[in-house]
């Protein structure tokens, strides 16, 4: 279909920078997702790709061809709006037929294509109704049908499921993914719901305050968050972020409140050494915690006090406090039902622990490696950190 690339794209509204230096490539025929919290610039980014907005700087390429100045009707994109934007004065049939009608296609062909797409999306019963006479889920399908009927090379979806209830959402989520597979349309799916992005996308771009935070597969984004924002945004609940200090006798080790000590292996150890950090942020996922009454062998164990226990049905979510007051969440089996005030051990496998530089907020693993063998002077270390910051 089409490959979409953004090169150094900026979008300003007056003084406000809504999209900041975005470089992204959405592969041909793949299902990509733009994931970010409310107000992060997702819709703006999508409108830039659709041609509704022109970039303030940078260029947008479709299959290597610069389309930055092309109006939306020349880009062959289908767009499903956040609020569906169905035409209220047209029936469902007329809504879906609209892109074909204004193209002046013969009536018979229009009818055929509208019916075929309506059948595919199970809305062929609704064709005579007006948008206000159908449910939110049905409106969503009509909007999708209208986007698909012109057989676009690129399908853009702006939080299409956000107005639907949880069950319908799950159902349409699966359908949408199957449909995309079958049609092979390059699809960009905007959402603030990380579970949607993780479940559906081949590629996720996390955006925050108009800046791309990380691009990668769902696995990448989930297992190796590139910075503290991504670590704190992805996951239900997101990763635990705990401040810790670094000791250096003889090898660099991270000392966490509650008696935990984590001495990373190579290459992390030398990176830690090279950066010369005094403090780090330790990240681990609540679902990676093994909660027990005793510290566990080969695990990093933190002594903590149970604060709240929430029963989620399939599992329990336990919030604990480390001796220095920092909170840690753990997901446990519903059989384990500690009481508030109990002393317990938060055990985490070392391989599940990630370290972040508290200043640049970057994953230390992701920071460019420094030559390991030689001890690094303090001045050199801070120089490197500045370089890393600038690069970010």
């Amino acid at each position: 279909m089409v490959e979409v690339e953004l090169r150094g794209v900026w979008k300003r509204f007056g003084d406000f920078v809504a999209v900041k230096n975005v470089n992204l490539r959405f592969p041909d025929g793949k299902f990509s997702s733009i994931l970010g919290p409310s107000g992060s610039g997702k819709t703006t980014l999508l409108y830039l790709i659709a041609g509704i907005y022109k970039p303030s700087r940078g260029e947008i390429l479709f299959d290597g061809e610069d389309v930055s100045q092309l109006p939306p009707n020349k880009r062959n994109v289908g767009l499903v709006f956040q609020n569906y934007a169905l035409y209220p004065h047209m029936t469902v049939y007329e809504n879906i037929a609209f892109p074909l009608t204004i193209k002046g296609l013969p009536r018979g062909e229009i009818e055929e294509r509208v019916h075929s797409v309506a059948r595919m999306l199970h809305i062929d019963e609704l064709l005579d109704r007006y948008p206000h006479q159908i449910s939110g889920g049905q409106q969503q399908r009509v909007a999708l049908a209208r986007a698909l009927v012109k057989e676009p090379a690129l399908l853009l979806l702006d939080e299409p499921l956000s107005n639907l209830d949880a069950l319908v959402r799950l159902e349409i989520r699966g359908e949408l993914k199957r449909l995309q597979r079958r049609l092979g349309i390059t699809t960009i799916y905007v959402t603030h719901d990380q579970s949607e992005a993780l479940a559906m996308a081949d590629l996720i771009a996390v955006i925050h305050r108009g800046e791309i935070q990380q691009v990668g597969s769902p696995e990448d984004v989930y297992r190796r968050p590139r910075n503290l924002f991504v670590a704190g945004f992805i996951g239900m609940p997101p990763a635990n972020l705990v401040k810790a200090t670094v000791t250096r006798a003889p090898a660099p080790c991270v000392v966490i409140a509650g008696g935990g000590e984590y001495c990373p292996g190579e290459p992390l150890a030398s990176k830690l050494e090279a950066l010369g950090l005094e403090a780090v942020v330790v990240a681990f996922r609540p679902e990676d915690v093994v909660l027990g009454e005793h510290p566990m062998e080969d695990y990093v164990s933190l002594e903590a006090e149970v604060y709240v226990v929430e029963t989620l049905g399939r599992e329990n979510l336990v919030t604990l406090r480390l001796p220095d007051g920092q909170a840690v969440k753990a997901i446990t089996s519903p059989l384990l039902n500690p009481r508030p005030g109990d002393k317990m051990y938060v055990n985490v496998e070392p391989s599940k622990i990630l370290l972040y530089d508290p200043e640049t907020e970057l994953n230390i693993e992701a920071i460019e490696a420094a030559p390991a063998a030689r001890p690094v002077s303090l001045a050199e270390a801070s120089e490197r950190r500045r370089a890393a910051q600038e690069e970010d």
Partner: protein
Amino acid sequence: MPRPRLPAPALFLSLAAFLVLVFYIVPLILTLWASLTPVRNWNVAQLRQFVGAENYKRLFHLIRFDPDVSTVVKTTIVFVAGTLAVNVLGGLLLALAAFIIEERASLGFRLLWFLPRMTPVAVFGLLWYYFFYPQGTLNAILLRLHLISHPVNWGQDVLPWGPWSIIIFVNGLVGVSYGMIIFYSAFKAIPKDIYRAALVDGARLRDLVFRIMLPLTRWHLIFVTVWQLLSLLTTYAHLFVLVEWGVVEKWHGMTWALYVFETAFGSAVNDQALASAAATLLVVVGIGLGLLTLRLMGFERELGAVRGEL
């Protein structure tokens, strides 16, 4: 014992009812009453005598046999139809232009069209007096362009379309901002995403206007048309000035409303009885035309099938 107090809503309602009574119902009844009496020259005592439909008979006789009065009827029809078209279509075009041009320029553009409405009638009339009178600006321009060889008295000599064009032009200029402002705000009220969706769907400007904007602002179109129709039937301030200063020939610049005014207060004989009959006829015709327009434009359909709110 405390006196019982009227609740606030009742107070407001009774005030509104009082105003309607004083400014609408009472004058209407008085007019109807006067049309059934022989009252002339403010001889109020005659208001107690009744002559039945005498004034109406006189009126219809005049319409049929007095060429001046039948000219007034023709002028009224041409004036109302022509100015209505200018006001509605012109208002639509101006609203579209204001909507399409850049936001900041748009405000100035819209204010500009309000000038004729905000300018005092006499000043505005004077302006067009200097423009149209034989030694005026229009003839100067046409002479300079060699389109005419000697000054033409457009409003007096070029009958009937000279004066008709002038009154339609002047009143069109005054009235066009009304439709513009209503259509403009109606276009603005359509959610931006609807326009964007249409653009993404491949719509050109023509499709946007005819398939999205106009159908979605139907109600406003009906409202402006009927409202302007009724205002044009009853307006006479600018016409009065144009006729009084001789910019246009008297009978071709006089609509029914001005005729009512002239008959009641203007001519040598102030025939209030005949004027009242003429005014009553105007009210009846106005109501009839208003209802007819609503029906023609499908107002009931609009009310019947409640469409989703935007």
